[in-house]
């Protein structure tokens, strides 16, 4: 082997300058896009959307929160299976999904009930899903929403494919995929961002940074302090947004969706929010975090924040608020009744929907199974 000269190390920034830039980078709140401050006042009044959009966003968050709250009760009553709550993340889910139309694709994770409801997934189907009824898997024909993804990150490359397929077929439809801060450590996340950039897929990637991956806080998940910056490595825009500000999440996502529709490619949006609730309704967060960890997040509540703003601006009154709440509650109870009416699956259904035509092997196994359950 011939001896080579050791390559010269690249010039390093002076330690002081380096530390200063890290500190600036660390300043999460300062670098977050926001329209509505936690106290309900506008930091960017120039970006306020029309009244009908504001009211729709509030309604979607209310529907989602109602689902989350009733879900807990139903779970305790044994009328709903284990599900991951999302209360407190409504702005992150509803504001983003509200930027889509029913021609667009939604790839939700298990935590994104709020996003799916916003796109139009019927409440009854959603309840059925979390009851582990097949009725919750048969997604409605008029929507392009996939069943909630349980494996982490796998939906990201798939969203790129759906987006690309829309583009190849000459539509202006886009695909939106969700992921968590933990999920952004998976290889699929990185492959998808790279594919989407390289192939210019009309894709909107939502990275919900809710502070935790079960028991692991974001600061232990990664040394990175600004996950939206990951986009830079793939040559695509990355935006960091206050994930508890529904006006901000809607505004930013809407821009990303328009860009994608116009053929300008994908965007990564990090919504900075917090999972104030346990990981699932069956989880005990006291094992891994303290009340201190949660401090301050209740005041940032996205629903309350938007309510204050709407009240201040007169778009909402005590009376119209009360009407909205009772409408939302009535809609949910009707859906619950519908979900209650879905029949249980029959045993042979486990062998259904494997192939378009069952193979000889599946036919044989069906006969065996039926003989067994009849015996």
């Amino acid at each position, binding site marked *: 082997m011939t001896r080579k000269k050791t390559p010269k190390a690249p010039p390093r920034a002076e330690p002081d300058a380096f530390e200063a830039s890290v500190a600036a980078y660390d300043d999460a709140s300062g670098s977050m896009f926001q329209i509505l401050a936690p106290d309900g006042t506008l930091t960017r009044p120039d970006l306020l959307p029309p009244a009908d959009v504001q009211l729709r966003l509030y309604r979607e968050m209310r529907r989602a929160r109602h689902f989350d709250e009733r879900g807990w009760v139903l779970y305790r009553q044994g009328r709903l299976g284990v599900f991951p709550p999302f209360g407190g993340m409504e702005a992150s889910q509803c504001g983003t999904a509200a930027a889509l139309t029913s021609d667009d694709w939604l790839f939700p994770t298990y935590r994104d009930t709020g996003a799916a409801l916003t796109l139009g997934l019927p409440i009854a189907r959603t309840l059925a899903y979390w009851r582990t009824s097949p009725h919750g898997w048969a997604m409605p024909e008029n929507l392009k929403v996939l069943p909630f993804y349980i494996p982490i990150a796998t939906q990201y*490359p798939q969203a790129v494919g759906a987006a690309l397929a829309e583009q190849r077929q000459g539509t202006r439809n886009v695909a939106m995929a969700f992921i968590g801060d933990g999920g952004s450590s998976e290889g699929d996340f990185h492959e998808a961002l790279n594919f989407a950039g390289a192939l210019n897929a009309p894709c909107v990637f939502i990275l919900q940074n809710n502070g935790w991956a079960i028991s692991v806080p974001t600061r232990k998940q990664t040394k990175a302090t600004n996950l939206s910056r990951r986009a830079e490595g793939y040559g695509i825009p990355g935006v960091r947004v206050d994930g508890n500000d529904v006006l901000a999440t809607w505004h930013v996502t809407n821009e990303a969706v328009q860009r994608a529709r116009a053929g300008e490619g994908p965007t990564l949006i990090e919504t900075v929010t917090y999972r104030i609730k346990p990981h699932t309704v069956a989880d005990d967060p006291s094992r891994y975090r303290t009340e201190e960890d949660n401090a301050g997040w209740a005041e940032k509540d996205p629903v309350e924040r938007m309510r204050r703003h709407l009240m201040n601006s007169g778009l909402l009154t005590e009376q119209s608020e009360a009407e909205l709440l009772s409408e939302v509650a009535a809609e949910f109870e009707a859906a619950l009744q519908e979900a209650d009416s879905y029949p249980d699956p029959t045993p042979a259904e486990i062998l259904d929907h494997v192939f378009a035509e069952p193979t000889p092997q599946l036919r044989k196994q069906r006969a065996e199974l039926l003989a067994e359950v009849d015996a």
Partner: protein
Amino acid sequence: MTATASKTKTMTMVAAINEALDLALANDPAVHIFGEDVGVMGGVFRATDGLQAKYGVDRVFDTPLAEAGIVGMGIGMGLAGLKPVAEIQFAGFLYPALDQILSHLGRFRHRTRSRYHLPMVIRAPYGGGVHTPEQHADSPEAILAHTPGVKVVIPSTPSDAKGLLLSAINDPDPVFFFEAIKLYRSVKEEVPEGDYRVPLGKARVVTQGDDVTVVCYGGMVEVAQKAAEAARTAGIGVEVIDLRTLVPMDTETVLQSVEKTGRVVIVTEAPRTAGFHSEISATIAEEAIEFLRAPIVRVTGFDAPYPPFTAIEDVYRPNPLRVAKAIRKVMAY
């Protein structure tokens, strides 16, 4: 088999595959081909040669180098109405994509109660016999055959390659299409022209015989054929069955032959433990044990990674002599 094709043309297996892809692209605008180096270069084995020039960079395109991305993106394309035909450069590089395959590709129809299905084909060169580097000769078909919801096809002749590939691309469900590297250019055959199809799930009786049934597929069919010829000179009638598709498997053809011969040799180049040969063996034991006159014998690779050592590669990969010895063994029992 469709009878539309009357004229034939002599070609290699890789040419037959290229022709099938060409026809599929021409017949259906939904068909899209992608993978590593499949575009300008036409694939490392040239299976996609000339297709990008003919159909454009939207229909035939290179992806970044990432197998999970390729399969995952293909799933999304299939969901959204296209017919994705992905190439994984070598079957030994399918592993990074196994999560997409096991978690999603195989169960999408099931988990959406048929609201969505994935008409996706994944082609991958597989198997040994041509002294490839490490990891380039793997035979991972059993992993896929063990995955509910995916089909597995492995042709052994140029006309089967064409006919099965067209069936695979037109199948509504995901199909793995393994192409024996050894066979790409080593055999030429008359291949029917036009939209020629061979149905999935039908085995091919390669040679007829009354004494021993040899079940095999892909790269092992020519090995078994040579052993069968040698056995014939010794007066032993060998029925060689080429499965063609592992999922669905044509159990009927295998059992009919076993009922006639009562002796079975199964040949694959995959490792021994828990291979697809075990499935064939178990099926025969369950369905036709009363016809067996000797224990079933498997001729396989070993429970070790496929050796990248040219000098001893042939020790791992079954050759005609090993198959012939197995035939003698079941005859002598």
